[in-house]
């Protein structure tokens, strides 16, 4: 009786995940979709706590489980509530790593008690869960460190080879364990575990910051697959469906992002891009002459323009300038200027990062333009105001075949009459590539922290 109620709980959980993901993909239903998945998760977890009966023994350690859950809930909810909107991407990476760690720990425990008569497939799903979970855990931690700016990109010659060798060793160790006689040699086991942990680090370490969204999405997909492996192990449908759903959805999202940045997924898997060397080659190259524009001039041209396009980037997020940005937009709109926001799909640190940020500042959904409609409108735009965006407006993506971002679709801001670029310094952007746009004749630089600059502009436009 208990077992069949539990099966129904798991069914409810699985269906709610599917419905939840579906609802998450429409702006109007997204929030309810998230609650639907959360409710399904609650049913599945409570069902397991009260109705699950382990084979051949009774349910042990309920107090410890509940205590751990309370600790986890406190840590999870407090950190999720306290995190700033700008730090969201690293938070997602961190939570993803926690899931990976959980999968790895489960596999380690299960591997310690496999019996001789267990099928190869059973062992394989344990090993796969352990490897994928560990890679996802350490990879996510490195991605977190990179987004925080605590870990720099590291590359060394022969990196691909080292990665491939590590991967081959992991597979070899797996084969030894599966073909063994049911007893696992500690050397092979710990070797495999530590190689997996190392692979996660090696895998993410060389990848440049601009590519972090792809990596996080990929690691998210990995954790999904690790979850599915555990689902196989326990013959547990809700873990299986949830894991596979996330695995396939994350993979597709990764591919979509790779396409947007003109990368192949294979390149990502071998952990190579960003290490091509050309990325830093241009940094020390000669810089042309750029011109600056004063705050009052900038306020003047925007105040009397017909159409202003704002291009937000990570600089806006860092400066927490989304509210004052919206204030400037509203002010200009009140003066009869048409104000739109051009959003590049990979601006910021994650796809949709800018949308989230501007939504927080109550910028109307209708004023946000995606890449293609924005590019159509630049031709009729008087002033483009770029706020801390760099690579997504770099014309090298269209002109320079040797550029690491060659082929990535960009916002063609050069078509507008005047481009004002707000940056803190002349330093190149996150991908470390020089940007010709800054030296063009219709481009003017406006140096300073985005928040201070925008506040000044608001005051000056008010006085016009």
């Amino acid at each position: 009786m208990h077992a069949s109620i539990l099966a129904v709980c798991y069914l409810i959980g699985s269906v709610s995940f599917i419905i939840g993901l579906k609802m998450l993909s429409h702006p109007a239903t997204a929030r309810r979709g998230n609650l639907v998945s959360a409710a399904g998760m609650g049913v599945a977890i409570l069902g397991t706590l009260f109705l699950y009966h382990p084979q051949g023994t009774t349910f042990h350690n309920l107090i410890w489980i509940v205590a751990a859950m309370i600790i986890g809930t406190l840590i999870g909810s407090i950190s999720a509530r306290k995190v700033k909107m700008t730090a969201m991407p690293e938070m997602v990476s961190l939570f993803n790593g926690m899931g990976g760690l959980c999968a790895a720990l489960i596999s380690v425990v299960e591997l310690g008690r496999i019996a001789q008569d267990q099928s190869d497939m059973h062992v394989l799903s344990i090993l796969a869960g352990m490897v994928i979970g560990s890679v996802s855990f350490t990879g996510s931690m490195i991605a977190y460190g990179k987004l925080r700016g605590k870990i720099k990109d590291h590359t060394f010659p022969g990196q691909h080879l080292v990665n491939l060798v590590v991967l081959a060793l992991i597979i070899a160790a797996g084969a030894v364990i599966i073909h063994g006689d049911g007893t696992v040699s500690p050397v092979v086991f710990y070797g495999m575990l530590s190689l997996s942990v190392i692979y996660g680090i090696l895998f993410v370490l060389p990848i440049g910051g601009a590519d972090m969204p792809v990596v996080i999405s990929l690691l998210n997909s990995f954790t999904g697959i690790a979850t599915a492996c555990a689902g196989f192990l326990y013959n547990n449908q809700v873990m299986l469906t949830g894991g596979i759903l996330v695995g396939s959805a994350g993979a597709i999202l990764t591919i979509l992002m790779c396409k947007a940045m003109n990368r192949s997924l294979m390149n990502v898997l071998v952990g190579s891009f960003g290490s091509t060397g050309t990325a830093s080659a241009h940094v020390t190259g000669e810089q042309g002459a750029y011109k600056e524009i004063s705050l009052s001039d900038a306020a003047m041209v925007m105040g009397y323009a017909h159409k202003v396009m704002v291009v937000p980037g990570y600089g806006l997020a860092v400066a927490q300038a989304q509210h004052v940005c919206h204030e400037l937009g509203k002010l200009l709109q009140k003066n009869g200027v048409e104000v739109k926001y051009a959003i590049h799909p990979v601006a910021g640190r994650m796809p949709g990062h800018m949308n989230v940020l501007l939504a927080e500042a109550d910028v109307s959904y209708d004023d946000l333009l995606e890449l293609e409609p924005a590019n159509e409108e630049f031709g009729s735009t008087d002033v483009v105001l770029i706020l801390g965006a760099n690579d997504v407006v770099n014309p090298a993506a269209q002109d320079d075949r040797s550029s690491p971002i060659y082929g990535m679709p960009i916002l063609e801001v050069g078509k507008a009459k005047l481009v004002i670029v707000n940056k803190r310094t002349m330093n190149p952007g996150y991908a470390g590539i020089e940007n010709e746009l800054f030296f063009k004749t219709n481009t003017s630089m406006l140096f300073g922290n985005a928040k201070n600059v925008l506040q000044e502009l608001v005051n000056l436009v008010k006085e016009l």
Partner: protein
Amino acid sequence: METLLSYIHNNLELLYVVILSVFLGIEVISRVPSVLHTPLMSGANAIHGVIIIGSIIVMSEAAPDNYVVLTLGFIAVIVGTINVVGGFVVTDRMLEMFKAGKDKASKQIKDK
């Protein structure tokens, strides 16, 4: 070869679930506007937190004096819960802002 075939035969239902779920995941995600990519990634991230059920099973089957397994399981339950709770709360926070923005936008239109 024989092991593989018999494995497929014995786990046919699971394999069907896997294959259908793969297509379902692809189908669901390929129509998402880029605006929702971050919340969706975060929501999916919370969903794979269902791995916590595995850690509960591990704990429930561990003998009360098997301290190694208990410690590993205890940590697993904690991090699994962080994944689930944190994931859903972060996603909700992101989407909350979308909703607020949209309500005000539609109100503005009505006011006009």
